């Protein structure tokens, strides 16, 4: 049985991790490779880095961290943020990322999913979506949640998987930052219609939220940022609690 994956998510801007003041005592807390290695040693199963560098020119410099992370850590990691073309995807994979995550660019150009999947294999193409519930419907937003695409989330993930996405990251905008638990209704609906791994994102605030998610859905991965960054939850304690609740989880000995 596959272990459920615990996935810390790090935002990187201009090659530095932002909102990462949690690891006191480290010389360079904002270095993606130091934080990445730290999480990997603490038991993270995978890492996601979102490059939020605003300008296209700065992005190439920013992405140098990918090579350094690839050298330092020995767990899989995904890189996303601003990837628009097959060339952008090739660049990140060549630097050593195991997966890439595409969001807005896939909405603007669904064929990008198909082309990338055919070239690199579905296993490394992750479709990430931002979802907001409006009048009992789940709607896809793009550009960091700023633009309403009027796409139905359930239809969009089905299409994304048909085009070749090998994994989905589902971020609930209603739950994100609220720390009141994951959006179980949304995640359940999505899990039921696709046959690729689903990663839950948005809403983690306590260990019990992860247990609830594990008990109520068969979602494959649990992604969170601030609860790990600010040490509100340690990966170790989270994993031990999940294991006690009979959730399959990897604990390194």
């Amino acid at each position, binding site marked *: *049985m596959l272990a459920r994956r615990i996935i810390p998510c790090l935002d990187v801007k201009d090659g530095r991790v932002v909102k990462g003041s949690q690891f006191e005592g480290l010389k360079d807390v904002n270095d993606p490779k130091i934080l990445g290695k730290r999480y990997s040693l603490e038991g993270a199963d995978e890492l996601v880095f979102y490059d939020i560098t605003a300008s296209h020119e700065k992005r190439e410099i920013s992405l140098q961290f990918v090579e350094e992370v690839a050298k330092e850590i020995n767990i899989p990691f995904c890189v996303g943020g601003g990837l628009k073309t097959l060339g952008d995807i090739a660049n990140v*994979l060549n630097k050593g990322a195991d997966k890439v995550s595409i969001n807005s660019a896939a909405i603007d150009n669904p064929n990008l999913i198909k082309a990338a999947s055919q070239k*690199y*294999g579905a*296993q490394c193409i992750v479709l990430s979506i931002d979802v907001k519930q409006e009048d009992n419907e789940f709607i896809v937003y793009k550009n960091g949640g700023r633009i309403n695409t009027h796409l139905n989330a359930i239809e969009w993930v089905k299409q994304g998987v048909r085009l070749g996405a090998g994994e989905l990251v589902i971020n609930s905008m209603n739950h994100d930052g609220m720390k009141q638990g994951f959006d179980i209704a949304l995640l359940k609906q999505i899990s039921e219609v696709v046959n690729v*791994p689903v990663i839950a994102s948005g809403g983690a605030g306590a260990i019990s939220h992860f247990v609830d998610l594990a008990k109520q859905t068969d979602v*494959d991965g649990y992604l969170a940022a601030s609860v790990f960054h600010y040490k509100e939850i340690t990966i170790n304690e989270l994993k031990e609690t999940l294991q006690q609740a009979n959730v399959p989880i990897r604990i*390194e000995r």
Partner: protein
Amino acid sequence: MNVIIDYKVGNIGSIKRGLNRAGIDAMISNDPDDIINANVLFLPGVGAFGDAMKDLKDTGLIPLIRQHVKNNKLLIGICLGMQILFESSSEFGYTKGLGFLKGEVVYLDITKKVPHMGWNKLFFAKEDTLLKYIQEEDYVYFVHSYYVDHPQDTLVAYTNYGVEIPAIVRQENIIGMQFHPEKSGQVGLKLLQAVKELIG
């Protein structure tokens, strides 16, 4: 020198970095002289079996790999590189493999999600020095849609995912790992450290 065979398949840099972390020096090459002089050959691989076999044939290195094995030197296949050590695959039609090991590569025809992607437990089929630093039920990282059906007495360790999936196989100087040791955290590192000791 240890050589990772370069035949245009992905993940080569990743394997090199993983070997380096375990203290194993390795160069990436498709130069026949490097292959002939290699102490250990690593055969990487991602993607489709047929494409990989074709690309490997195109390098002209297969006779040199066979000679390497005849000379009793270590050959280590990782992921698809393990699969092509076997006789054949049914991936997109029948393709012959290198045939060093007896067994066939077939699709994971199961009700679970395919590819088999993520962390899964190792169970031991027999004693082997490769396992000296790890324990049964340790997790390693898999990404694959095909698996080796009945590797017979070469099976060292396996995992369960709808079916029993061979994870480590070995026949004397030929070793295969279906998962990615270079991406399998501390357990993967320990396995590669055991490989390092085999190399001496």
